[in-house]
């Protein structure tokens, strides 16, 4: 297999009759900085989401006594619901239409690393904005900046309960009569899931100290990020053996200083490198690959593009080809792409078709679009994606999706080459050509292990 096909399958959105892959690792890295046609498909920034939500909340708070505000409330509510569908369609269309799609795959990876789940239109569009402003904006830069942006984003502060955590000795807590205090959820997950990884690098005491240090980070009543010094626990905290905070009045950059340090901690370098290699290369990644990536991470102070560079050019990434099972979202993207389904079609398709072709299959395959059920994000090991009921859903979808191109299906030989590349097509084609119909033959190519692996 040439590097172009390898790169599209392993690191990109999959093979497509409309795009050639990058011929070299350098070209693959360069593709990250090039436009991906995203202008065609609408996105919303966090500020836009916040403004919309603020208008909605103004209406909601006053609507009982004011018909104008009631109308405003209804209007903004409807806008949020519309946006919640449009933004998810956009994300799908972008991944399908991207020339390479490495940035989209990275965005999927980091959205699982900084996993957020939320029901209701507001939380859905805020999560989409998080992907845009936090993940896509920072996934090619320093890990410290990505970590800071993710941690301070209102969607994360809300999801991990940071917003309600208050320093027990803060002015805010002592002014209110009732007992207010810490919630250690975000601090724990920041160390365990976002940076150091589970292990010996931190203790329960570090979690408590970090929870104290992080007090003051909150979401205001309109859903925007706010730093509230009056909620901050007074005094300095010691986290991972170093002292942070303690300024009078407290300042946000004191918390930021911790993010800068933990983002380049050796345990973080190893944890992030291993997780990337687990996602892109193998459930049990070769230690040599992980070490090469972690070394680059440490040497560059957490320059993420430099770490990707090591991964995509590494001999072991090539040798472990086929060991990963495509996650359901990626399977659906690759399936649409192989059939040359247009992004515009996905944006415009009826809601009932979208449910049938995307939402329900994703849920049945184990990856509902609403997000991972737990803050750990999506599992990597293939057992988690290949239960009989999940495979049944993959097959069911594969046999259904050719109907999107009913009148316009390519011959099966050509399709197998487009979808799988020359070598793997030769394994699959003799079997699928015995199907009872062309759509079934094409569906079987998409159901094949060769298409489901990368």
């Amino acid at each position: 297999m040439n590097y172009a096909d390898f790169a599209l399958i392993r690191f990109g959105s999959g093979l497509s009759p409309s795009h050639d892959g990058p011929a070299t690792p350098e070209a693959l890295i360069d593709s990250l900085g090039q436009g991906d046609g995203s202008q065609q498909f609408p996105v919303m920034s966090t500020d836009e989401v916040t403004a919309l939500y603020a208008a909605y909340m103004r209406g909601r708070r006053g609507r009982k006594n004011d018909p104008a505000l009631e109308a405003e409330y209804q209007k903004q509510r409807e806008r949020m619901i519309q946006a919640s569908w449009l933004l998810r369609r956009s994300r799908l269309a972008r991944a399908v239409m991207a020339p390479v799609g490495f940035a989209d795959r990275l965005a999927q990876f980091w959205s699982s690393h900084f996993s957020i789940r939320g029901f209701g239109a507001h939380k859905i569009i805020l999560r989409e904005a998080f992907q845009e402003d936090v993940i896509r904006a920072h996934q090619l830069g320093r890990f410290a900046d990505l970590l800071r942006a993710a941690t301070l984003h209102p969607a994360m502060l809300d999801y991990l309960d940071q917003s309600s955590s208050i320093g027990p000795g803060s002015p805010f807590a002592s002014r209110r009569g009732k007992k207010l205090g810490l919630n250690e959820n975000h601090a724990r997950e920041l160390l365990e899931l976002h940076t150091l990884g589970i292990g010996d690098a931190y203790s329960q005491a570090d979690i408590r100290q970090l929870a104290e240090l992080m007090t003051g980070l909150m979401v205001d009543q309109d859903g925007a990020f706010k730093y509230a010094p009056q909620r901050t626990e007074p005094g300095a905290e010691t986290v991972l053996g170093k002292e942070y905070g303690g300024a009078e009045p407290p300042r946000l950059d004191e918390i930021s200083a911790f993010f800068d340090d933990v983002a380049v901690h050796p345990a973080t370098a190893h944890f992030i490198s291993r997780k990337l290699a687990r996602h892109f290369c193998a459930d049990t990644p070769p230690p040599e690959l992980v070490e090469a990536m972690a070394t680059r991470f440490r040497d560059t102070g957490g320059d993420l593009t430099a770490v990707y560079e090591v991964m995509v050019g590494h001999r072991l990434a090539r040798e472990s080809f086929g060991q990963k099972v495509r996650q359901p979202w990626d399977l659906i993207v690759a399936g649409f792409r192989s059939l040359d389904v247009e992004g515009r079609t996905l944006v415009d398709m009826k809601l009932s078709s979208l449910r049938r072709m995307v939402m329900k299959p994703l849920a049945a395959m184990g990856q509902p679009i609403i997000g991972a059920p737990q803050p750990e994000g999506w599992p990597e090991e293939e057992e988690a994606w290949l239960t009989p009921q999940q495979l049944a859903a993959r097959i069911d979808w594969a046999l259904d999706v050719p109907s999107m191109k009913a009148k316009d299906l390519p011959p099966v030989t050509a399709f197998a080459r487009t979808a799988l590349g020359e070598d793997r097509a030769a394994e699959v084609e003799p079997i699928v050509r015995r199907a009872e119909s062309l759509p079934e033959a094409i569906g079987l190519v998409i159901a094949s292990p060769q298409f489901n692996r990368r």
Partner: protein
Amino acid sequence: MDRRRFLNIALGGACSAAAMPAITPMSFASAPGERRFVAIVLRGAMDGLDAVQPYGDPFLAGLRRTISVGPQKGALDLDGFFALHPALAPLMPMWAAGELGFAQAVSTPYRDKRSHFDGQEILEAGTGDQSMPYGVASGWLNRLLPMLPGATMQTAFAVGIENMAILNGDADHASWAPEARFDVTPQAQDLLRQLYDNDPPFESAAETAIALSTANLGEGAMKVSEQKQIATALASFTAARLNAETRIAAFSLNGWDTHHNQIGGIQRALVQLSDALIVLKRDLGRNWDNTVVMAMTEFGRTARENGTQGTDHGTGGLMVMAGGAVKGGRVYGDWPGLDEGDLYAGRDLMPTADVRAYAGVALSGLFGVPVSKVESTIFPGLIMPDPPHILL
């Protein structure tokens, strides 16, 4: 016995069974006996001190203000010391009938890191190893299966969309979701088999999917597809399997990670648990008498309420047991107390028993597995010197 005679007996048996509802035709399957075991994994760490509130402990009120306030806020007294969370009130008849019990202050051997991910891995692996690498070789229910005489693929059943690691492993078992469908022509099935021939994970999942789609899951599966509530659907589907060939089943209920505003958060999760148990009893009918259900969680939560009317990750927790084969109507376990010095690491309920010991007693009693096998193979490293007598 000649073939004609055998057929006569078989047909005659089937006819008379149909006339006698007490014996279902499924009784002729080669499944190992009539006893049944259901494991429910409560993911996210259930707050056992809120589900079964130790209101008789003088220190509870000092630790918790808005949650777990006992009978004065509607919790139902169980034994003068513990009270049941009001959301579990529909289970009171089960308690009164001796078909519902609890084990307080239990845990796996997992300590100190309080990670959901690792906690659940260790719970489902059933091992004592704390330095577990990613991915567990097998789950403890899977290691039970080779000890059951005549076990077939459907003897053990994982229910729900998500993978159940508790049943992962070498021994063959079924896995399906109430809402799953597999409707593929015979020709396509044949071609799929050939496509998956050289890829064992795909091959084995596809074989199970094909077998289950053709093995008349029928009525049970169709009925539950109409269920709106996930817990009800899971329980109803599970009961239908257990009324047929299945004797071991497992599913999960999510939503227990109540860091914030626990009053609202835990309500939803407890109602799901309550619904699941009630539907299991209803749909199992007389088979309920031969059933043990155990609901367990990765760890408990902090004894102290946190600053946001919730609780953080803790250690000692609660196991819920139900079924006609359980000696219920009591809360098992040595109560460690809630005074500052009684707590684990000054913050969590001190575990006084290994949750695996309760499961081990159940498996040993239900399926005749020797205790030595429980200690060596199902739960390696577990020692059960004085096992609790939880079965009738």
